[in-house]
């Protein structure tokens, strides 16, 4: 690559950028997912009984709220080429922390804050093993998945704490007055904007992409790779703990096994939203569309009396198709570029 650039500094042209901006924005994977989301929504509203009612939106958003929140930092983590499998266990740990502290007499505000700090600490533990010790994130977070869940279940056993102040549990379930939209979406929108700005409009965010494309190259370009990853894992733990506090208040029940298996739903939605599991590619709007798409399909199929096994098969197949399509399209793209520029260098893989 470097050699080519030295030899042909002038004639080098990027076919990917040969199209006008609007085409490049419109015909992307994220745009395809958003289009799919709209189509599925319209089709479901027209064909599935009771789907068009406004209450669907309330239930749907309440259903996916936890996944939406956790998906934000997870997007950044996966773009760097890492993964955080411990998020659902952090939800459980924060839920139990909130529950036990509240039971011990702490007000919910204080107990919730401690729970979020515990999440940040859990993220820092992940970050320490990954960036300082240098272990792969897959191995580390599989370990902490079991560790944090074990702590959570160990702290509360098989009991549950349920006596939360009604003000907070009501708030967690409330809707924005006059709309069918749950209030928690305000928190989500604020966080989504923050993460989108962080990822798309700051040097830190460019560093995240650079790490995902090539950790070595990023390091040589001055990106502080370890520091960036560490911050991302702390963010992931913190947001997961926040989601855990919300989850606990919404269901009014702090249990060690809360949100078991949620990490897979989050990662599935992030990948469906166009983030590459190999890192370096994806964006926040796509991920939000991915989460909503899985939510809408589940909601519509449940209303159509499709059993949960079949719903799992359909969402699973959709996920596999979306991941496979990326690789196939990348291959097709390389073929086309190869045919266009006979003697040119191999184009960088876009997808």
């Amino acid at each position, binding site marked *: 690559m470097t050699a080519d650039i030295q030899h042909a500094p002038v004639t080098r042209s990027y076919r990917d950028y040969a199209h006008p901006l609007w085409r490049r924005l419109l015909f992307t994977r994220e745009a*395809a997912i958003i289009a799919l989301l709209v189509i599925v929504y319209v089709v479901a509203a027209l064909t599935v009984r*009771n789907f068009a009612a406004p209450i669907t939106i309330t239930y749907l958003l309440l259903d996916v709220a936890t996944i939406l929140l956790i998906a934000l930092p997870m997007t950044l983590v996966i773009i760097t080429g890492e993964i955080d499998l411990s998020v659902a266990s952090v939800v459980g740990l924060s839920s139990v922390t909130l529950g036990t502290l509240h039971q011990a007499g702490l007000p919910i505000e204080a107990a919730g804050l401690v729970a979020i700090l515990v999440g940040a600490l859990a993220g820092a533990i992940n970050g320490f093993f990954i960036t300082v010790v240098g272990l792969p994130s897959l191995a580390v977070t599989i370990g902490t998945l079991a560790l944090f869940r074990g702590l959570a279940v160990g702290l509360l056993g098989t009991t549950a704490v349920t006596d939360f102040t009604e003000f907070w549990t009501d708030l967690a379930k409330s809707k924005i007055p006059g709309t069918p939209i749950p209030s928690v979406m305000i928190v989500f929108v604020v966080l989504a904007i923050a993460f989108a700005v962080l990822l798309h409009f700051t040097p830190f965010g460019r560093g995240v992409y650079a790490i995902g494309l090539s950790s070595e190259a990023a390091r040589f370009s001055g990106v502080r790779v370890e520091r960036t990853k560490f911050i991302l894992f702390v963010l992931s733990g913190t947001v997961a703990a926040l989601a855990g506090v919300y989850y606990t208040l919404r269901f009014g029940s702090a*249990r060690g096994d809360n949100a078991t298996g949620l990490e897979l739903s989050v990662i599935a939605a992030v990948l469906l939203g166009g983030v590459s599991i190999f890192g370096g590619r994806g964006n926040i709007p796509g991920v939000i569309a991915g989460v909503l798409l899985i939510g809408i399909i589940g909601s519509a199929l449940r209303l159509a009396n499709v059993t949960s096994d079949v719903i799992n098969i359909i969402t699973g197949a959709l996920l596999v198709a979306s991941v496979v399509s990326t690789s196939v399209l990348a291959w097709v793209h390389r073929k086309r570029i190869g045919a266009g520029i006979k003697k040119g260098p191999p184009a960088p893989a876009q997808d």
Partner: protein
Amino acid sequence: MTFSTKRAGSLAAIAVAVALVATGCAASDGGDGGSGGGDGGNLAITFLPKNLGNPYFDTSSKGGKAAVDEFGGTFAEVGPTEAAPDAQVSFINTLTQQGVGGIVVSANDPEAICDALNEARDTGIKVVTFDSDTNADCRDLFINQATAEGIAKVQVDTIAEQIGGAGEIAILSATANATNQNAWIELMKEYLASDYPDIQLVDVVYGDDDDQTSFDKTAALLQTHPNLKGIISPTTVGIAAAARYLSTSEFKGKVALTGLGTPNQMRDFVEDGTVTAFALWNPEDLGYLAAFAAKALIEGEITGEEGDTFEAGKLGSYTVGEGGAVLLGDPYVFDADNIGDFDF
């Protein structure tokens, strides 16, 4: 990438849309057929077990379906694939939107599904819990499978019959602080003292609901008490481990064993003669009764108040007890004659 991505994207969109239309139409034609009709109320009753693919709940849903078919309602079963605390919420919400007549649910968490159930009840849906209750203010009725007294009595009666009403017995329990088991053991002691003075309870040991520990404790029990004539194990883990030990030991057929077990766990030991009879409730009857309770609520025959009475088909007449609970009846005794009828 642009053109091919677009084409693939729209292909995928069309494929999903087509699939959705196909399943949506097919399912709503079949599933919602009966929900609108009926003059005495909306007899669309949906069972929501803790999770699907669980033989115990397959059996209870079978009973529920038989009942719903009997009174001409529409039966459906939905549920999560895993018994997570919050997993039932989205299904309850869906049923609320569909406007079913009644939900019959076994709660994964007494608190987590409360709000969803109350929202359903606000729209006029009747909620019956069975097997595992929610908080009492989130449902109309709870169908209780058995009382502590009934569970204690059936086990003592069974062992007494098998050992001829006299001799030494021991209990193999779960953990030393297991609330249910300890309550049952206390009641068993009282019942033994009052009705079977010739039976001595010589020991209570704890297998911690762990297969290997229970196995070892059984062996130790038989060594320590050579005159032991019978063992009661009021836990499904304990009884299976004890049966496994007895079936391969010299005590097989000499020391009686009973307790609480499931037919699938105990089938081999009943067939090879290690165990004559053991007890549990009948989940099929439980589902059957729950469906009839839902019907009685939907048709306004009862409101769930204490003292209300309703008919439950072949099971006869039931009265609502304290706290909106309906008791299924005495525990069910499984033996070589009837174990073949059950698969859970």
